[in-house]
């Protein structure tokens, strides 16, 4: 019954813009990104389609890692886009998605949500959501981008395996009350719509301003696993492409384009 109510609310949301002009809802699917990538291959009019599922059987994160996706409690959705800008600028969508989720969570719940580079959603020092983007390019243009978002909304932490539980949280765990998932979903889409429109117009300043305001990585001693290496130093900020600038112990600087950041505890 609860799922039916969620489905009804998700599908009846008021969305005047492009993002969410068509909502494809599943009670359960392998992963919303997998479903969206299939749509990306099959259809040409993908820009703005959003795939939502109440649960995922193969929810996944970076490098094929598992994303716990039980039914009836969280948000799992994928925004499909076909932007006109160059693939080289697509990583900015990572930032736009993170900013949209963090500011929507803050506005909708009153919680203070932050971003750990590049796009982990952090509440109370723990991970409350993750974002994974998958892009297909060809002939130097973007065929489509799938922005997969998972937010732990009302999940009890006892569901999670022991190895990730200490680092994870849900919005309701911190809030102490149940959160309206469909309402939060609508809020994320409407904030994202504004950010996406700005990027299409070539306006990046508002995005960087907001990312910097919400980020919780800058100034911290960190280590980043990037490709085959580990880079350790102080996170100094981000460059014009969103890459993480790390000040190395030697005094030099390095920009990391991808990786997992661990904030090191103060000794």
């Amino acid at each position: 019954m609860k799922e039916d109510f969620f489905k009804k609310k998700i599908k009846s949301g008021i969305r005047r813009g492009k993002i969410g002009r068509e909502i494809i809802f599943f009670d359960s699917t392998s992963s919303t990104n997998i479903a969206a990538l299939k749509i990306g291959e099959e259809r040409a009019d993908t820009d703005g389609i959003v795939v939502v599922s109440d649960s995922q059987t193969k929810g996944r994160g970076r490098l094929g890692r598992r994303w716990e996706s039980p039914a009836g409690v969280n948000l799992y959705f994928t925004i499909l886009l076909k932007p006109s800008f160059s693939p080289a600028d697509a990583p900015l969508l990572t930032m736009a998605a993170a900013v949209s989720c963090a500011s929507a969570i803050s506005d909708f719940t009153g919680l203070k949500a932050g971003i750990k580079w590049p796009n982990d959603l952090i509440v109370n020092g723990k991970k409350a959501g993750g974002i994974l983007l998958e892009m297909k390019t060809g002939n130097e243009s973007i065929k489509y981008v799938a922005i997969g978002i998972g937010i732990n909304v009302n999940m009890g932490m006892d569901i999670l395996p022991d190895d990730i539980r200490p680092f994870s949280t849900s919005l309701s765990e911190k809030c102490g009350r149940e959160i309206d998932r469909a309402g939060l979903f609508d809020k994320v889409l409407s904030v994202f719509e504004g950010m996406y429109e700005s990027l299409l117009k070539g306006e990046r300043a508002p995005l960087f301003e907001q990312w910097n305001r919400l980020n919780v990585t800058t100034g911290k001693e960190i280590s980043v696993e990037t490709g085959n290496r580990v880079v350790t130093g102080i996170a100094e900020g981000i460059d014009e492409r969103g890459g993480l600038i790390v000040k190395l112990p030697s005094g030099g600087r390095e920009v990391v384009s991808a990786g997992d950041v661990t904030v090191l505890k103060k000794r």
Partner: protein
Amino acid sequence: MELNEIKEIIDMLRDSDISELSIEKEGVKFTIKKERYSHAVSAQPVLQPAPSVVKEAEIPAPAAEADQGFIKVTSPIVGIFYTASSPEAPPFVQAGSRVEKGQVLCIVEAMKLMNEIESDCNGIVKKILPGNGQPVEYGETLFIIEPLS
């Protein structure tokens, strides 16, 4: 020149406004360049070899191979190159693999954006240039493909 002498020079340079310094001593010439930062992580040491050490033969072969009608697949973004979808998965392709147009060759990741790069033609993978997990620059050649009609 002793290693600690080189270290001292590097330390001096770090705190100065000098961006490049060439030294020739006891028949050995080398150049130290200081960059504010590089865009992709790079394992290259700050110490550059003497220009005379760079041999013509070391200039990568791809340019020559591309001239023979081979196709270069380049990276559309700055990121990390992966030959497989996850550390446990088999590689998408290997040198010698036959590929179809539209087949995924690799992933380049930038900021949790996984960019699947497809082959633009039917052909044979002649060469895979970066290693798995290595940083790649915008426009860097990733694959050399021999097209088949």
